[in-house]
């Protein structure tokens, strides 16, 4: 053990991991193709301990990454090789819940779904609902400005964080935002949320809670082409109805979801559209009438309306399980989350299909149709030499396609490690330089989550099968 590490052990007598076996679970996040071995993992239990860890890193010029449950799909919580992982899982308490002011104050390791569960007795909930919500933490959601199925109407994480106590890269503490929905002066909190851990670590987060809608109306429509489902979305938008969510799944995603959770979807459908209205009962009832007409004339060959909360949850279960379900169809997959203008959805999907054929790799599509946020899942087998590289190349083409159509390389997963090379597709050198100046003003040594978001930087960590897998110790289904 080096003197520096011994120093860290004194700071974290019960919260330091540094043996290889202890580090293994932290080497990777949900972007499993990437892996890096940190020097150590610390498990702070308080704001002061996060400050101590950051100051230690600053003193020894060692890069670090804050981590929650490690569900980042963009490699956002991937360690820096030889750096420190500040794992916030022990800071997992709900500090305050104020039903009258409709706020919750949580530590960063608190789980997204737990916020809504804690608020439920008061008829309140926390709106952002990434598919990872049963496991992902508020700290990670904040760092990556997580989305979910309801973003068009309710916005992303950034629209639901009122305030945060943060540890800046120099170890100082800052308080950003307030309890008010309004502010005076530049929106510093708005900059901090979604900064992917590059500007500091949140240790206390004030969230805004919303009243639970009185009524839902959830429609599942099956189509014989993806195009018809896409046109149905455009027709809903044109009708002036603003649904809480509009989701589309293609046949491969339907197959996977059915195999995984048996949601009861029409298996032979080429595309499924889920539209959910929510709000005051009389309004939802009136809107449902209009929606019915729109869907009826959209060419759906089967339409189901959830008749109970159980039926509604079943429809959503299949959709929410789609990502992990695709794991059943293929040993590995890459998920992209590029965004295109809604009117370009059909064009984007046709192009993705063409690319899929050209690369000889299957692509399943599950997407937030209401906001043009695609989720192509590129299936590959990491054990076949060259297949990961082909999958990444295909993923890159999809990102470029999204930018060319006027969209974005990421709607909700963030840039992280995965998409940093594509930032120049979207932003000019001047744009990136301005962002980098902000980064360096707060973190001149670029220690905080080094190597993420900006192109270049640290060399990419090794990829391919896990060393234990290569050694035959573990196997994948």
């Amino acid at each position, binding site marked *: 053990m080096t003197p520096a590490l011994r120093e860290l052990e004194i700071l974290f007598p019960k919260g330091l991991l540094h043996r290889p076996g202890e580090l293994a679970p932290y080497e990777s996040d949900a972007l499993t193709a990437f892996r890096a071995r940190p020097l150590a993992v610390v498990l702070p239990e308080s704001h002061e301990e996060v400050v101590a860890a950051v100051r230690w890193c600053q003193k020894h010029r060692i890069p670090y990454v804050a981590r929650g449950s490690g569900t980042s799909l963009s490699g956002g919580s991937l360690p820096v090789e030889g750096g420190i992982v500040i794992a916030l899982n022990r800071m997992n308490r709900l500090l305050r819940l104020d039903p009258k002011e409709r706020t919750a104050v949580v530590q960063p390791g608190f789980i997204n779904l737990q916020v809504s569960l804690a608020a439920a007795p008061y008829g309140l909930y926390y709106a952002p609902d990434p598919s990872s919500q049963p496991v992902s933490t508020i700290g990670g959601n904040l760092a990556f400005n997580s989305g979910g199925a309801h973003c068009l109407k309710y916005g992303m994480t950034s629209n639901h964080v009122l305030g945060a106590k943060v540890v800046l890269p120099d170890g100082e503490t800052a308080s950003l935002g307030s309890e*008010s929905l309004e502010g005076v002066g530049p929106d510093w909190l708005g900059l901090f949320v979604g900064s992917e851990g590059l500007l500091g670590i949140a240790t206390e987060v004030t969230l805004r809670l919303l009243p639970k809608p009185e009524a839902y109306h959830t429609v599942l429509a099956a189509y014989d082409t993806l195009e018809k489902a896409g046109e149905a979305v455009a027709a809903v938008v044109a009708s002036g109805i603003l649904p809480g969510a509009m989701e589309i799944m293609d046949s491969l995603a339907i197959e996977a979801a059915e195999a995984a959770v048996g949601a009861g979807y029409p298996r032979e459908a080429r595309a499924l559209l889920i539209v959910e209205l929510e709000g005051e009962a009389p309004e939802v009832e009136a809107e449902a009438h209009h929606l019915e007409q729109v869907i009826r004339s959209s060419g759906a060959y089967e339409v189901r309306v959830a008749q109970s909360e159980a039926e509604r949850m079943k429809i959503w279960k299949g959709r929410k399980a789609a990502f992990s379900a695709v794991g059943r169809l293929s040993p590995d997959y890459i998920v992209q989350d590029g965004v295109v203008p809604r009117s370009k959805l059909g064009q984007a999907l046709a192009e993705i299909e063409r690319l899929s054929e050209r690369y000889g790799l299957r692509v399943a599509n599950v997407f937030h149709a209401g906001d043009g946020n695609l989720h192509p899942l590129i299936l590959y087998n990491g054990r076949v030499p060259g297949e990961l590289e082909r999958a990444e190349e295909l993923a890159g083409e999809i990102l470029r396609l999204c930018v060319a159509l006027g969209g974005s390389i990421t709607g909700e997963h963030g840039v992280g490690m995965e998409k940093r090379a594509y930032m120049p597709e979207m932003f000019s050198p001047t744009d990136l330089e301005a962002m980098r100046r902000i980064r360096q003003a707060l973190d001149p040594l670029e220690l905080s989550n080094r190597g993420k978001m900006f192109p270049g930087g640290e060399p990419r960590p090794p990829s391919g099968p896990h060393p234990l897998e290569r050694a035959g110790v573990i196997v994948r289904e």
Partner: protein
Amino acid sequence: MNSLRPTHPKEVQEAVRSHPRLLPRGGGSKPALSSPKEGQVALELTGLSGVLEYNPGEYVVVARAGTALAELEALLRAHGQYLPFDPPFVGQGATLGGTVAAGLSGPMRNRYGGVRDFILGVEFVDGLGNLVRGGGKVVKNAAGFDLPKLMVGSLGRLGVLTELAFKVFPYPKATATLKVAFPNLGEALEALYRLAASPIELYALDLVPPNSLVLRLGGLPEALPARLERLEGFLGRRGERLQEEAEKAYWEGVRDLRDFGEGYLVKVALTPRHIPALEARLGAAPRRYMSAGHLLYLAWSGPVEALDEALRAEGLPGLILRGVVANPRIGLNSEGTFGLKVTAALDPEGRFERYAAPN
């Protein structure tokens, strides 16, 4: 007074590079923020005007920062859409850029959120004269630092806004308003809390001192009568109903902050918890609490120092919009090193007014 009127972002870049101190200015509807001080060159941005992209099916509009809100609003209305943060001073000539820089939203922000919740993309000239873009032109985007949000409320201190992209929504097909008087402030506040925690979806939830709530419903016309009944049932009292043209005219007046009379016009960010103590301090100042008690606009005729002190005592930040003052930021200003460092990164030479905290 020295002033420049660029008509292209390139001219804004040149202006920034060639003048040591500048003050960007839009329609001049918020004179406390747009009157140049000694040594400042005014950068008149109304020449940087026009809608650049608008496809109603995308719910996105992109326009130059000097575009008048009135012009944009007319275009959106023609397609049944609107800016859901409901910006004020439309009738007084406010521009998009000035609205973002001042960080202003109006009564209907209650339904879907404020200007920070609807800004998608930004192009601005930083203090070095670089033309920088952040965000995007689609309704959902998580790439790069959220520079669009950073600019909300920035008062021109981080750069000169040249182009903005917003998310827009369909305007409700019908609206109706209920004015309800309560016996006292306490009961009005209690009703405000109950409404805000209920599933009743209000486009506006305003508290008008001393003891009234003004509630605006929106949606499909066939559901409105039932919803109004339910609303009165929920409150346990009847109200005065406003409908049709009278209702629309009423809210346009409210939104443009027209009925506040003389004095300093001030925005305060707060939560409803602060209302009782503020009410005890504000005397006869005309005022209105919007968005379930999170946004206060008031007119102050006394010395500005007294208001500054009152807001400090309550721990609230305020922004003077109208009236001549040395520093429009009053009340709590707890800005720390985070803000100072970000400001220095974007304007290292200090070309823009910083409105530093007086304390």
